[in-house]
């Protein structure tokens, strides 16, 4: 069974309540935005771990224990803002270099062009998700199931 990583954007004032009562997290994430649930979602599939490793601009979030997820991390709005600024500052060549370096560290072979395209697309989606969350001053959750 593959592991899926989902990023959720949520109102910044609601984060504390979820951290105090993490068992409410799963119910909260099931709701739509109209029902008071998360405002946006980004499914990074099973690539979430690689992406997080290659993007150190995203500061380590607060680990949340007590949910049904395998792992869960939360980033308060201020941290989301800082991370979004860091992500915005990465250039395309820097991204490609990181991909090559990561691939080399894995198996020594150069990254193929398809993997590179896929990585750039995912990174662009992730960056726009964090920037949109930062503009709304939202908090972000990474929910790994």
């Amino acid at each position, binding site marked *: 069974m593959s592991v899926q990583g989902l990023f959720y954007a949520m109102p910044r004032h609601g984060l504390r309540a979820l951290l105090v009562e993490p068992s409410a997290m799963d119910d909260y994430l099931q709701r739509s935005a109209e029902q008071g649930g998360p405002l946006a979602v980004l499914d990074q599939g099973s690539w979430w771990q690689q992406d997080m490793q290659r993007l150190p601009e995203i500061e380590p979030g607060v680990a949340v224990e007590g949910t049904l997820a395998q792992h869960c991390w939360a980033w308060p709005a*201020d941290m989301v803002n800082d991370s979004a600024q860091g992500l915005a500052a990465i250039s395309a060549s820097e991204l490609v270099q990181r991909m090559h370096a990561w691939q080399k560290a894995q198996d020594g072979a150069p990254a193929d062009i398809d993997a590179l395209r896929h990585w750039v697309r995912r990174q662009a989606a992730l960056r726009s998700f964090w920037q949109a969350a930062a503009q709304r001053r939202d908090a972000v959750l990474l929910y790994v199931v």
Partner: protein
Amino acid sequence: MGEKNPRWALGLLLAVGWLGAHRFYLGRHASAVAQLALSLLCAALWLWGGPAARYAPYLLGPIVFWLLRDGFWLFDYFRIEEDMDSRLSAFAQSQLDEQTSMPAAKAQVAAAPIPVSVAQPSVAAALPADPPPKPATDPQIDKKSLAIQMAQKHIGDALASQDVQTAHAEADTLVRYLAQRSRKPQSDPHLAMAYLLQGMTFYQTGQLDAARKKLQMGVHLGAAFAELAQPVQQAQVLLQRLRSPQMAPGGAALPALQPGQYPLLMQSQDWAQALTWCEQTIAMRQAGQDGDVHDLAQHHLHAMEIAQHLGDAERQRVHGQAVLALSLRDGGGVPAPMQRSALQQLGDLYQAQGEHRQANGYYAQALALVDLRSSGNAAAQALGLCMLLQRLASTHAALGETAQALQCWQRLALYLDSLDRLDQQGQRMPDPEAVSVMLADYAAFAIRHQPTRVKALVQQALRIQQRSCRGYSLAAARAYEVFANFLAAHGQTDARRSALKKALLLVQICDPDNSAHLLQLKTSIREAA
């Protein structure tokens, strides 16, 4: 419509209900004719025979269903009647008792406007005392008038005690009672009055949508009656206000409230108007000389609260002094908690102005009024005492009286320890966040004067927060900040940075909009690095 007998109505329903007899009996002529016509049509089809007779059974279903429904309707009808009858007789009796027992007092009350304005909503006061101008010989009309008077009084009482549910229930009962008694709603001023009363009750309790509907209904029904001109006009002003709430400048469009109801303005945070009316109420109470010191002190305390919101320190001081003067003048008339509240607020006022000596005096007086053995929640009282000790300690510290400040902190810590023990035993601590903030403040004081206690105090504050909210609170952030200052004083840079980062994370989570605090913590972290 005369008084109806429930047995007759039920008998008619069972015997000749299919002819609509029970509805004729209760004056529901239109629906009774419809019921009769339906039954006759069914019988005619049946008797006619031939192909038309096939349709007769299809009409039986609606007729039987209607009769069954009428059974429930009759039950509700007479339940409401009986309930209202018993309440009306009790109300009439109480009115008679009042008139006979204190005629002189009644005359005085009528002369002074104060109790009326406080006890009854403006709507009740604005409506004519005896609304229907028709001759009072008809007992039914007398009953309706009495029902309206009773509802006005009960709604006024409920609103004065801020019991919104009771006020709504009273208005609803009145409308239902009058609606079932009105054969033609368009020609019944009582029903129109009931809708106006219900609409104004909703308006005063902030249910604006419901208020608009009921007021529109009241205006629609009441416009035809000259005797209802005043309440209808009042309702129209309210409706105009409801259509455009922002077009209510000053007091021009505030006819719904009386000065005595300024707490409603406090709820809606209209502080300037609330202060004016609160002071008017106080002036009326003082002029009335009714000797209710408790009530007067409560109004002064409200005035202090309102003045605090307005940032009017002088008014706050004046009303605080008035509470103290009342407690001196009537020795014991003002309850100790009220005196304590006034003293504490006066102390806060002087403390904010940098007049620590005077603040200290007020705090000390307030502290003397705390009685932990008195009835009530002992833990909450202990917390109140701790808050006073905290204030007293800070004024002593500001005056350079370190020994007295330390004494206050140590005494406070003893009480907090006992609260902490109760919390550990599973009894709920009244305000864990306030307790932790007090411990953190003590720790901040102890950095210079009692450094060996700092770590233990911070740990205790964090432990309490961990138990109450997994440590996600501003009190925990404050404890980390204090600990960071302690570490800075001892040159432990890395540990200080770590504590500051924890504080920053907690502020980011618990107070995400406090950018000044966030910036200050980030700057401190950078400096520590």
